[in-house]
């Protein structure tokens, strides 16, 4: 049965890599099921064979969450809208739908995600599973709109879940790295479609520093890039047309971009830059966020200006209750470090990481970090509860790899190479 599902071209290539090329895998098979029942067959076969199966989204991660020498499943054939209710503001999508596809489908039906990140190529389920987020103190990460769905568990069973019948499973599933099962359908709590005005300003740190707290409060979505080799800053303000910080109050900055469009068109496509970079991002408590960034800025200027040209990105996120969300139970500010894929990133990242840890930072699940289970469980109050749910849904560990074992079960950073 599963041989029929095999995409022979993919099988011949027998390779998978993430978007930057820094993570590669050589699985036995790359499969693209077209139905839920085909997916169940794949998982059951892998369970019977003692083979690991991992689900891949768009590969927009810098950690080996997909890497396996077993089977990689792509949901590229399970995309689109299942149904929707414009009056209730809800919709159900197939899990392989990309954010770009979802944006178009939902907009034509008058619905919208309340917030988005910076990239539209990710699949919805993949973005949820790794805790992808946008920015704005009133908005949680992307998975915060997940209200239920269907997944194929490690035993090949279909498990439906929702907030009424199994709220703990929902809170575990939102950010779960594909370790509870493989999503097939996801139910979303959305809002009416809307327009956004995106303004971008250039300035420098000494000019804008004191204004950052107000900019966070006054704008629907605000974030900023800091450029280490010049101390220049790009401010990004997204609001309903005409909203947000008055232009006259930004006399310390130069307006370089001013566009208004439907919400799904405001995601920067990043077509003007390459994809060959690696990234580390930590979420710290928002009240300490700017202090942490100031120290990070000083450390970059002191230690890394010679070797790092890429900007640092600072965003805010609302708290939530997802068990492995980096925003679990606290307002967060995220700080990310980026380096060209062709240049060494670990000396830079491992120099910066202890600073983020001093602030009880939680590493983004899809970006570079060195933490393992022993350290991570101290950061998540419901860590063990999540693991119980995961073991219940995947008793034989068909979704687990050596990396995920180290990350979620028994890892020690001294025993595992950085990934």
């Amino acid at each position: 049965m599963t041989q029929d599902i095999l995409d022979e071209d993919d099988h011949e290539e027998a390779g998978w890599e993430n978007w930057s090329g820094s993570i590669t895998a050589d699985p036995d098979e790359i499969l693209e099921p077209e139905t839920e029942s085909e997916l169940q067959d794949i998982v059951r076969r892998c369970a019977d064979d003692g083979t690991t199966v991992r689900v891949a989204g768009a590969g927009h991660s810098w950690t080996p969450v997909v890497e396996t020498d077993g089977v990689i499943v792509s949901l590229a054939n399970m995309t689109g809208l299942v149904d929707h209710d414009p009056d209730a503001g809800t919709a159900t999508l197939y899990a392989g739908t990309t954010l770009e596809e979802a944006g178009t489908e939902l907009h034509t039906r008058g619905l919208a995600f309340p917030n988005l990140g910076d990239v539209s190529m990710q699949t919805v389920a993949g973005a949820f599973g790794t805790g992808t987020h946008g920015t704005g103190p009133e908005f949680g990460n992307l998975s915060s709109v997940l209200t239920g769905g269907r997944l194929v568990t490690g035993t090949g069973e279909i498990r439906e879940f929702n907030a009424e019948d199994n709220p703990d499973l929902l809170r575990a599933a939102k950010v779960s790295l594909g370790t509870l099962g493989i999503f097939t359908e996801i139910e979303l709590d959305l809002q009416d479609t809307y327009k956004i005005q995106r303004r971008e300003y250039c300035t420098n740190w000494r000019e804008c520093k004191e204004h950052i707290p107000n900019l966070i409060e006054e704008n629907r979505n605000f974030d900023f890039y800091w450029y280490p080799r010049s101390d220049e800053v790009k401010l990004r303000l997204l609001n309903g047309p005409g909203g947000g910080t008055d232009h006259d109050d930004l006399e310390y900055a130069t307006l370089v971009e001013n566009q208004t469009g439907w919400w799904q068109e405001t995601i920067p496509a990043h077509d003007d830059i390459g994809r060959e970079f690696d990234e580390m991002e930590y979420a710290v408590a928002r009240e300490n966020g700017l202090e942490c960034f100031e120290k990070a800025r000083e450390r970059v200027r002191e230690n890394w200006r010679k070797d790092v040209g890429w900007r640092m990105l600072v965003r805010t996120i609302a708290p939530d209750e997802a068990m492995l969300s980096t925003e679990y139970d606290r307002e967060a500010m995220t700080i990310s470090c980026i380096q060209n894929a062709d240049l060494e990133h670990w000396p830079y990242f491992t120099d910066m990481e202890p600073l983020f840890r001093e602030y009880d930072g939680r590493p983004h699940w899809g970006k570079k970090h060195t933490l393992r289970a022993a350290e991570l469980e101290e950061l998540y109050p419901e860590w063990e509860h999540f693991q119980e749910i995961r073991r219940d849904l995947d008793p034989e560990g068909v979704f687990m790899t050596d990396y995920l074992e180290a990350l979620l079960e028994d890892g020690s950073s001294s025993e595992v190479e950085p990934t």
Partner: protein
Amino acid sequence: MTDSDSETDETPIGETRWVIPGGHVPTGSTGPEPEMVSHDKLCVLNTGPEMATLEVTLRYGDGHEAGPYPLSVASERVRHIRINDLIDPYAPPLGRDYAIVVESNVPVVVQFSRQDTRQAENATLSTMGYGE
């Protein structure tokens, strides 16, 4: 204006390939940034009627090549490009000797300058590249 003057005016000034061997971005700076950050800079003048499409490649002493960095300069415009600001596909490491090769689809004029603010007595230098 005579016909010959008009033809002269329409002939772009410059060359399509330029080389500056003496690149070296100082690692330190003194004074408020970004104004006083030490840097190397390319100044490209396009006097012609067409958009100039450039590829900038950096060559290091160990044989490593960085780039090419695609750049453009609009018709009848000058553009200043700090080497420090190049990021993609490869942020040039500072403090290392390198050379700059500029290739353009139309004739342009390329000048090179350096601002070195490592000490309070700031230094600047400027030179033309070698064109052919």
